[in-house]
């Protein structure tokens, strides 16, 4: 598939941005500078970026508890993300959602979600809404191998298939449901074979190769935009960090450093970098410049978050309900 150089550089940049954001969170957490829980996306960047590179601003995504990568790939501003992680009023959710609930409906981010499998029916809803409004918007629904065993997986794929909804069910198979390995939580190896049960296309791809992800999702997006319905795309990948920051020694209770090592060698960013260098889309100097610029952006995000105020106690009562009424028609 032919993509412009500019597009490829943009995709590379976004991967680096996700990685840098997450690495900064590792550091900030270790130093106790951000509160709460964060589930990091390091090692899985090719999935979010390869998938979202197919989307328009008015398309939708639903995300997961491990959502930083998805929302950055859909265009979220790291400044407001960082402020949200810090629990500040300037964050995406005014500090009320935190890491697991970043949402910006205006750019199609229907929310990261703290419930495994929680985003799937919501994605179906975005799909039925796009179809009803007769737009050609599509929705990418991200979820993990763990969530694929939740009842919502079946209910959502079935509903989307019955109504031929424009939803791309994008399964990030990072091989662990927290500590439970895939072989312990399901008998199948390729989750995409479940597509057969809904009579929809299903494909398993190498999730650490961004162009492979891009192409698979591209096909699914075209299929969806033309009214043919959903696709199940499974991307095999791996999470380098523990389930969350604080999972001891990157998950040593259920895996060893030796298990992780080959996946670090399969780093999706380095892999793309090699391709781009070889094809002379990028030079080492340009790569260094991109990394530098992004570090600066992350620095600024941290400064912004630090400088922002915490909510006041009274703010707890705001936003429980939408105050604006549709009006009695």
């Amino acid at each position, binding site marked *: 598939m032919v993509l412009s150089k500019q597009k490829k550089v943009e995709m590379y940049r976004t991967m680096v941005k996700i990685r840098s954001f997450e690495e900064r969170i590792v550091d900030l957490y270790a130093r106790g500078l951000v509160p709460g829980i964060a589930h990091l996306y390091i090692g899985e960047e090719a999935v979010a970026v390869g998938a979202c590179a197919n989307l328009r601003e008015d398309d*939708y995504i639903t995300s997961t508890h491990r959502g930083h990568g998805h929302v950055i790939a859909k265009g979220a501003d790291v400044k407001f993300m960082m402020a949200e992680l810090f629990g500040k009023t300037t964050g995406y959710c005014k500090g*009320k959602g935190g890491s697991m609930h970043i*949402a910006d409906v205006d750019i199609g981010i229907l929310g990261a979600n703290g419930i495994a499998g929680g985003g799937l*029916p919501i994605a*179906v*809803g*975005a799909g039925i809404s796009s179809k009803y409004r007769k737009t050609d918007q599509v929705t990418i629904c991200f979820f993990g191998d763990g969530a694929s065993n939740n009842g919502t997986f079946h209910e959502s794929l079935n*509903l989307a298939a019955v109504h031929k909804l424009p939803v791309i069910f994008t399964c990030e198979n990072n091989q662990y449901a927290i500590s439970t390995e895939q072989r312990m939580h399901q008998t199948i190896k390729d989750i995409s074979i479940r597509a057969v049960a809904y009579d929809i296309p299903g494909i398993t791809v190498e999730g650490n190769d961004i162009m492979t992800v891009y192409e698979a999702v591209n096909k699914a997006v075209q299929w969806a935009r033309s009214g043919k319905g959903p696709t199940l795309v499974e991307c095999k990948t791996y999470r380098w960090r523990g389930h969350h920051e604080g999972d001891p020694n990157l998950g040593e209770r259920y895996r060893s450093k030796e298990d992780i090592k080959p996946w670090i060698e399969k780093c999706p960013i380095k892999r793309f970098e090699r391709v781009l260098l070889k094809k002379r889309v990028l030079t080492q100097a340009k790569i260094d410049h991109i990394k530098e610029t992004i570090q600066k952006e992350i620095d600024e995000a941290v400064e912004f978050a630090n400088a922002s105020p915490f909510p006041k106690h009274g703010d707890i009562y705001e936003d*429980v309900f939408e105050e604006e009424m*549709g009006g009695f028609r």
Partner: protein
Amino acid sequence: MREITYAQAINEALRENMRRNNRIILMGEDIGRYGGIFQVTAGLLNEFGPDRVIDTPISEAGFVGTCVGAAMTGLHPVAEVMFIDFTTCAMDMIVNQMAKMHYMSGGRGKVPFVLRTNIGAGRGAAAQHSQSFHSFFMHIPGLKVVTPATPYDAKGLMNMALADENPVVFVEHKKLFITKGHVPEESYAIPFGKADIKREGNDITIVATHALVQKTLNVAEEMSREGIEIEVLDPRTISPLDRETILNSVRKTGKLITADEGCVSGGFGSEVAAIVAQEAFDYLEAPVVRVGSPDTPVPFSPPLEQFYIPDEGNIREAVNKILEYQ
């Protein structure tokens, strides 16, 4: 004055809103061709077509969650969950998604969505089709919980539910569907959080919901002949709850009975009793009495089920208990 049933009143409100507002779609099991098992959506498929009246697979989490997503992206869906018992299959979608999306996103995502369902025993359907745990939803911030007792209220409250840009759990009562009452043909909306004084009285306050409103009115008429004047308050929405009207009434009568079909422990009546104990303690002249269902699952056998359902006898008993403190 035109009289129609409670089911027809809801149907009329849905129909009129769907004519005016093309954001509204309906989803649920057997709501289209079948018209809903209680015929609340009868005829709507014919008028609005299958894009707006959608028969779903049996998948409560799936279609309730679908409504959440549709609401976040511009529609105003109305779901029918066949019995409140089945909301348990969609509890994550209701409690963690529908109710919290607006708050978690700091107001960036709104969920204008009406989830219709129904409570009530009395059809011999036993423990999984007869429950009345609507008060469970008043424990979840972010949901508005509506409890219509009459055809008039049902239409006006549905009109308001569809004018509200928030998640609404609209709890109907299955034994009320065929009851008839005056319902104006024109459109009108009943505000949420505004209790209706269904009968004025100075001696005892009874806060009643759903089918117990009429049963309480029946007892009040009887007691009136004995010179006891009962004030009957119907909150109409249990969340938001019109505390002021309840407190004002208790300040006047000094006596409170609650009558709600949920199991007594941890129920709506307990909440009302707590509010009154906290805010109007000095005015109480007698213990508060809660009328409700026993703390058991709904039994099947007809005599047991009839014993289970709170009725005029239970209300009379509560009144007599209170009168001992005169």
